[in-house]
Each structure stands twice: as structure tokens, then as C-alpha cells.
């Protein structure tokens, strides 16, 4: 069993308290995602706005019980992600902060880029976006077609293309965009883009759940990218492009898995809270759900520890955890509805929200087929150690 130490237990307890304040706001935020602007002072939202930022770039991190938290550790991240998602994953995804982009900047950025990016985020609550997925190619990074061409000055790059399923793009100031400079696998690079620049536009579209995230279609029409905004310009081409994307996703997936885990737990706790007089059979069913949640929690923590220990099996474990947690979220939320009678989803809007949000966790950072292919790769390469 992977248990939390005193430091992370303190984080979990605080995150649970913060998330508890967000839950009563969940349905309101779904109806109007712009209401996030009213909640920026809440400690939970403020924590998300300032994590993950590497220690070197944040002199004033969140401190709890004498412990400092930057949000960069794997186990640290899955711990607070689970707590927030058990309350309202929509609020977590609506919050400002470095989010997905922060992971890529920390991984691929040079000193100046990190100082610029994280410095902007510490000035005031700032939203970021991460754009890789394209309309006809999904998350297949090797096939992306968004193009970076050289401007007449010979240095500046011009970014053109369309991205889809990009969270927070319409409210973001800056973000990371994957695009290609030339054909072939080494032609893919990541750049830092600013949304105020001419040629950028983001249009939110409606989704079944996770509405706080304001998922958008983003279009770039010759958006100017200064040469010093190419992420990983100090790295070799083999490390900064597609390899960088893979490495970044491997680091993100334990956190995404924790979102699925949290959604499942939220639905399970909803049943415990609202169905106190259970029959024997119902008690058995609920206990079984509780055990499944704990099992997946262990898998998610194992992936998180692989991140903390630079374990080469990280990518495979993270995919296993992500696929399994999304399945847990789907199954648990549907089973939770079965504890209430006809019209349960109409009479219990928060439970209905968990059911819809669970569907969203399946698509984030790749559906289970993509994850399974990663897990198989680990299996075939002998990287999934038992024990």
C-alpha cells in the first residue's frame, strides 16, 4: 500500500477543505463558466493558480503546517487532484494557473522562458492553454499540420492552423502550441503563444460535461512567434519536439488519472451522504465500489511515484492508471445512480454532473485505446515490473 506521509496528509486535508468550499458552487459554474472570475480569492482556486510552478521560479509557495508546496511532485499532484475532482472537477479545470502548459514549460523551457512564463503567472491569476489536438487528427502529434513558417525578417515565426478541444483557450493569456516547421517527425516543435496577438481566436463549444473548462476551437492565422519563444531551443531537435510531447504527457497523466479517481469518489460519497438507510445488498454493493476506488487509488499513486522517482516505466504506468481511472469513473457514477429510484439524475443534479463529467475524463489526454497501446508497449518491452 502506498500511504501519504505527514506532509502530503496535510496537503490532502487542506485540499479537502478547500474543495468543500467549491462544491456548492459547482452547478452555478456549469451554467455560467464565467463565474470563475468571482471565485479567484477562494484558497482552492488560488492554490491551483500558483501550481505547478518549480521551486526555483516561485519564492513564495503555498505553505501548510511548515511544509512548502509547489504542486510539481507526482504524489503531491495526484493527492490534490483527487480531492478537487471529488468535489467538482469542473472548477479545477476552470481555474487559472500553469496547468498543462506549466508541465511542458518546466520540462522543455530554458531559463529565460521559464522566468517569463512562470513570472507572468505569479503577477496575477492568469489562464493558460495547451494546444496539440487538431480537428482531423486528434492527439496524433506526429500527424499534426499546424504550421510555423519564417516571417520576412528571417527570425520571427508565423503560426497558422486550427486546434480543437482546447480547455480555457478563450480566457487564457498565454499557452503552449505544438506545430511543425517542416515535414517529418523532427519538424514538430512547441512554442509559447500569446492570445492578445493578432491572428489568434478561440471559440468555446458546448460539451456534455466539464463545462467549467470552456473547451474551445482555436484558430491561428499568421500569429507572430518571436524566435526566443520556441520551447527547448537549447535542446537537441530529438528531445524538444515529439519526444518532448511524449515526456510531457507521461508526466501529466497521473494527474489526469487522479481526476477520474476523484470523480468516482465524489459519486460514491454522494451515495453515502444521501442514502443512509441501505439494504444489506446495497451495503455490499457500496462496499464493493469503495474497494474498487481504493484499488485504483493505489494504481494512480504508483504511477505518481514513478514520476517522482524518474522511473522509466512512468509512461506505461501512467497510461494504465489513466485508462483504469476513467473506466472507474464511468462505472462508479453509473452504479451510483442505481442507488436512487426513477428520475435520480433529474432529482440529483450533482450526481448527474458526476456522471457527465466522468465521460469527459475518458477523452482527456487520450481515450483508453491510446492508453492501452502504451501499456502494451511497456509489457512487450519488459518495462512493467511486477511487485
Amino acid at each position: 500500500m502506498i500511504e501519504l506521509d505527514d506532509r502530503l496528509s496535510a496537503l490532502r486535508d487542506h485540499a479537502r477543505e478547500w474543495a468543500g468550499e467549491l462544491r456548492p458552487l459547482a452547478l452555478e459554474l456549469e451554467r455560467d463558466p464565467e463565474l470563475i472570475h468571482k471565485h479567484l480569492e477562494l484558497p482552492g482556486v488560488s492554490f491551483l493558480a500558483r501550481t505547478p510552478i518549480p521551486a526555483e521560479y516561485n519564492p513564495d509557495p503555498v505553505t501548510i503546517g511548515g511544509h512548502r508546496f509547489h504542486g510539481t511532485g507526482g504524489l503531491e499532484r495526484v493527492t490534490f487532484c483527487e480531492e478537487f475532482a471529488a468535489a467538482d472537477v469542473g472548477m479545477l479545470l476552470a481555474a487559472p494557473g500553469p496547468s498543462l502548459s506549466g508541465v511542458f514549460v518546466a520540462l522543455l523551457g530554458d531559463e529565460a522562458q521559464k522566468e517569463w512564463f512562470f513570472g507572468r503567472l505569479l503577477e496575477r491569476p492568469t489562464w493558460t492553454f495547451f494546444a496539440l489536438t487538431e480537428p482531423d487528427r486528434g492527439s496524433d502529434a506526429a500527424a499534426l499540420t499546424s504550421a510555423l513558417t519564417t516571417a520576412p525578417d528571417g527570425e520571427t515565426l508565423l503560426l497558422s492552423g486550427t486546434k480543437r478541444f482546447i480547455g480555457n483557450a478563450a480566457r487564457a493569456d498565454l499557452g503552449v502550441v505544438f506545430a511543425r516547421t517542416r515535414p517529418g517527425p523532427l519538424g514538430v516543435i512547441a512554442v509559447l503563444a500569446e492570445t492578445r496577438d493578432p491572428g489568434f481566436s478561440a471559440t468555446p463549444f458546448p460539451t456534455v460535461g466539464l463545462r467549467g473548462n470552456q473547451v474551445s476551437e482555436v484558430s491561428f492565422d499568421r500569429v507572430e512567434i518571436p524566435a526566443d519563444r520556441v520551447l527547448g531551443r537549447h535542446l537537441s531537435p530529438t528531445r524538444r519536439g515529439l519526444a518532448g510531447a511524449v515526456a510531457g504527457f507521461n508526466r501529466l497523466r497521473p494527474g489526469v488519472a487522479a481526476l477520474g479517481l476523484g470523480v468516482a469518489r465524489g459519486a460514491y460519497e454522494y451515495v453515502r451522504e444521501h442514502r443512509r438507510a441501505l439494504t444489506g445488498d446495497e451495503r455490499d454493493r457500496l462496499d464493493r465500489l469503495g474497494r474498487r476506488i481504493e484499488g485504483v487509488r493505489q494504481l494512480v499513486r504508483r504511477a505518481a511515484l514513478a514520476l517522482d522517482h524518474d522511473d522509466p516505466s512512468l509512461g506505461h504506468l501512467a497510461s494504465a492508471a489513466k485508462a483504469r481511472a476513467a473506466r472507474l469513473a464511468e462505472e462508479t457514477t453509473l452504479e451510483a445512480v442505481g442507488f436512487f429510484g426513477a428520475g435520480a439524475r433529474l432529482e440529483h443534479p450533482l450526481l448527474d454532473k458526476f456522471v457527465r463529467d466522468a465521460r469527459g475524463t475518458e477523452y482527456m489526454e487520450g481515450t483508453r485505446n491510446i492508453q492501452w497501446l502504451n501499456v502494451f508497449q511497456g509489457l512487450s518491452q519488459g518495462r512493467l515490473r511486477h511487485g
Partner: protein
Amino acid sequence: MIDYNEIRDVARADGLVAALLLLHLRCGGDPVYGPAGHAVLPASIAGDEPPLLTLDLYGDTLVAVRGRGVPSREWSLGLAWLRLGLSEGLLGRCLSYLGARTAGDSPLLVQQLVKGQLAEAVTEHLLIQGVLHEELAAEALDDLHLQITLADRMLLRLLGGSGFRADGPGQSAHVSELLADAYTGTAEVRT
């Protein structure tokens, strides 16, 4: 006597709202409420009561409302055929989507993982179709509704993120789930 195949065919070809209007028409035309007094229906045939929920689906508006009445046997069976038809329609959309989309140089449709999952979904459809008959007990019908939901979920995963958009087939599957929610299950639960 309702022609269930007609309901199923309309659901598969013309979608949820057309099929739901037809089912109402074949069952007398009035709003029908589930065991705990909920209806999910097109706004055009709902009364004036304030809705619990309003849903947009391909330009149509549906509402969830409270009321009184016990659904007839024909309604309950017709709704299962309707949802099966919708799931079959979703399968058709998956085939077109996956045939047009490529991974590497080949359509997603020819990937072995994808083929297996489509086969699994159509097998569920065949199974449901095989047991969906007039004499089915109410509890068994409720189980079939859950199986239809699970078949839909298998198919939605194959649509990737586009299956999560509220202006596409993912929203139809969502409303289909809410129909099952309103019209199946028990009238009361102990709290």
C-alpha cells in the same frame, strides 16, 4: 398495437426527437411520466410547468418535467426499442467517422482494437434485440436499458473528444440516458 420496429427505425434514421414524438403519438399523444413522476420530452408537447431541466439537441429543445401518471406497457417497450434504434444509429455514425479518420496511413476502422470494439457493440445490440419481447418482466426491461447505455458508452469512446460535444451524437446519447433515468427504476427509495 404499436409497431415497435417503426419506432426503432425512426430512432435509427431520424433521431431521438422524431422517434419520441412518434412514440407519444402512438401512445395517445399526452405526456407520459415515469414511475417517480418524471417526463423527458420535446418542449413542443410539454405543458406549461417549469422544467427541471432544458436540453438542446440538434436545434430541438427537450425538457424534463414532473407530473403524474403510470407509463403503459406499450410505452415502456416502445422506449426500449427507441433507445436500441438510437444506439444502432450511433453505431452507424461511428462507422462513418472511423472510416474517414486515419491513424498513420490507414483508416481507424481497420485497426484491430477498433474492429473488436465495434464487434462487441453490435453483439450487444443483437443480444438486446433477441430478448426484447412483449412478455419481458419490468426488472428485465430495466436491465436492458442499462445494457443499451453501456453499448452507447462503448461506441462514444470510439468517437474520441467529438463524442463529448453537446452539439453532436454524444448529446443524443446523454438524452437517451436521461430517458432511461426518467422511465425506469423504482418509484421510491429509502433515504
